[in-house]
């Protein structure tokens, strides 16, 4: 490969840009009290938060798959009026401040919300400030990542395989499950992992809609924020844990998402 000659100004600006990302990570690594790592990680509250985070983020991912894949299929395959508007609405949480998402969820599913009051009076179901509420908040914020990834996968797949399956007598559902889904497997996987990582890091919508109760709604990001006020060294360790998980996801996905080098 030919060595590219970098203009000096570009090189300097790029280096500053890179340093902007590297320094905070370095700070986290250097200033973390490594000696207390075991103690901080095994504290009962931390273990609870970690467990809750994993359960809630994985649940959110499963829910996003169940509803997001069909939604992506409709966006990719069905032409209807208002499709672009609906697509914009379902991907809005990607750009919306999560706190706003949390407030919107409260207004819809809170005890006095549009649907929430009915759920409460009819079934006695309360969603806000419960673990289910955490899952809802995370799904709301993370599902759009799955939808856009899967829709892109559906649009780029060779649809003639579906035609080949039809000539072999496969009905619509068989085509979908036996041909379409396996062929978009990589997009499905990438979408699910991105969705999961986003759910794991969710903070704003969760604290607004589900509150911050240890063992019930206090996920890792919430615990980190809370610890920052009381035991900031422990919060460094937990931050590092979240960082390692996120980095692991990005590295695993780099070929798919950041483009293969």
């Amino acid at each position, binding site marked *: 490969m030919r060595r590219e000659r970098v203009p000096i100004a570009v090189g300097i600006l790029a280096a500053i840009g890179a340093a902007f990302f590297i320094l905070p990570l370095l700070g986290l690594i250097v200033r973390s009290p490594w000696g207390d790592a075991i103690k901080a990680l095994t504290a009962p509250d931390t273990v609870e938060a970690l467990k809750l985070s994993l359960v809630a983020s994985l649940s959110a991912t499963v829910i996003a798959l169940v509803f997001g894949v069909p939604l992506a299929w409709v966006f990719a395959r069905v032409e209807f009026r208002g499709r672009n508007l609906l697509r914009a609405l379902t991907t809005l949480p990607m750009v919306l401040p999560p706190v706003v998402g949390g407030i919107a969820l409260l207004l819809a599913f809170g005890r006095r919300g549009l649907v929430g009051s009915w759920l409460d009076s009819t079934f006695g179901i309360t969603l806000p400030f419960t673990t289910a509420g955490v899952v809802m908040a995370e799904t709301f914020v993370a599902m759009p990542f799955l939808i856009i990834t899967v829709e892109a996968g559906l649009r780029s797949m060779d649809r*003639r395989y579906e*035609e080949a*399956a*039809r*000539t*072999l*007598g496969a*009905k619509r559902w068989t085509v979908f499950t036996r041909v379409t889904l*396996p062929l978009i497997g990589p997009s499905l996987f990438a979408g699910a992992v991105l969705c999961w990582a986003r759910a794991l890091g969710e903070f704003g919508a969760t604290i607004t809609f589900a509150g911050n109760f240890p063992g019930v709604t206090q996920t890792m990001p919430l615990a980190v924020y809370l610890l920052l006020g009381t035991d900031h060294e422990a919060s460094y360790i937990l931050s590092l844990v979240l960082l390692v998980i996120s980095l692991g996801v990005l590295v695993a996905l780099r070929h798919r998402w950041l483009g293969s080098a």
Partner: protein
Amino acid sequence: MSLEANVRLTLGALDLDIELSVDEAEVVALLGPNGAGKTTLLRAVAGLVPLTSGYVKLDGRVLEDAASGKYVPTERRSIGVVFQDYLLFPHLSVLANVAFGMRSRGMRSSEAAEKAAHWLDRVGLSAYVQDKPDALSGGQRQRVALARALAPDPRLLLLDEPLAALDVTTRAEVRRDLKRHLTTFPGLRLVVTHDPLEAAMLADRLVVMENGRLVQTGTPAEVTERPRSQYVADLVGVNLLRGQADHGSVRISDDSVIAAAAAESGDVFAVIHPRAVALHLRRPEGSPRNAWPGRVSGVEMLGGRVRVRVEGDVPLVAEVTPAAISDMKVAEGGEVWVSFKSTDVGVYPA
């Protein structure tokens, strides 16, 4: 028992309007240049493209009828399709690919696997059942595609350029095997191809298409003896002219008339084999009735002979020996005379 299709549809620049029938006793090849609409016609028969008007009937049963709006979806038509690039499912094993059609139609998985294994044995691939398609060579993939299409026992077998994706060395062998499977297949058979040799070797009857229309149909021998379009004439390698016959001559255009012993009357095609066309440096002696000057616009070698294209009142191709070329020093742009005998002109009604 037959396939009868009357297909009219437009798709992009293609305007398709053609009537087609396939009988049990014959293998039919759709032959035509790229963009003629062959593949679209095949897809319409399979139910993958909707008709604007017309119908598709299989054994008298209506599969699609634009007038009544009746449409039997692709998955409920008894068809087997071999696609041009095979479209084997990359995520399934060779065995699962071949079993797919039987599984889709509700056969038990063990029985489908057994039948699929039997088909793979028939096409000589029993050693590859567990492999993924991309581990196979082009010729092997073609066989898997054929086995996959045949395994569910379809009534109608459709093949879209079944040999086009193969290299020359494997093509002859795969063509021979394909011929054998086509001969033993008990249902209706339709092959799409742009290769005249392939069409002639695989099919009993050719349907020649150009620009979405049927231009000629007949046995390979009939089509090559009496081309009815420039496309077929070029494939066969003969000079094809069209004009008005008038007892011993054919008027090609306002300025040019050729002498043709066989000409009687009416709108006719006149065909002249390039070997019957002679080249001269000067006006030929003995004044044959068909002789005129022209300019050489192309010279190419073809199987030990040289084909010389001469532009003039009537553009013609002459086929001569390499020795004659070097004697006459014929080169592109040079002036020559062409001549042919009136008895060497084949004439038949247009």
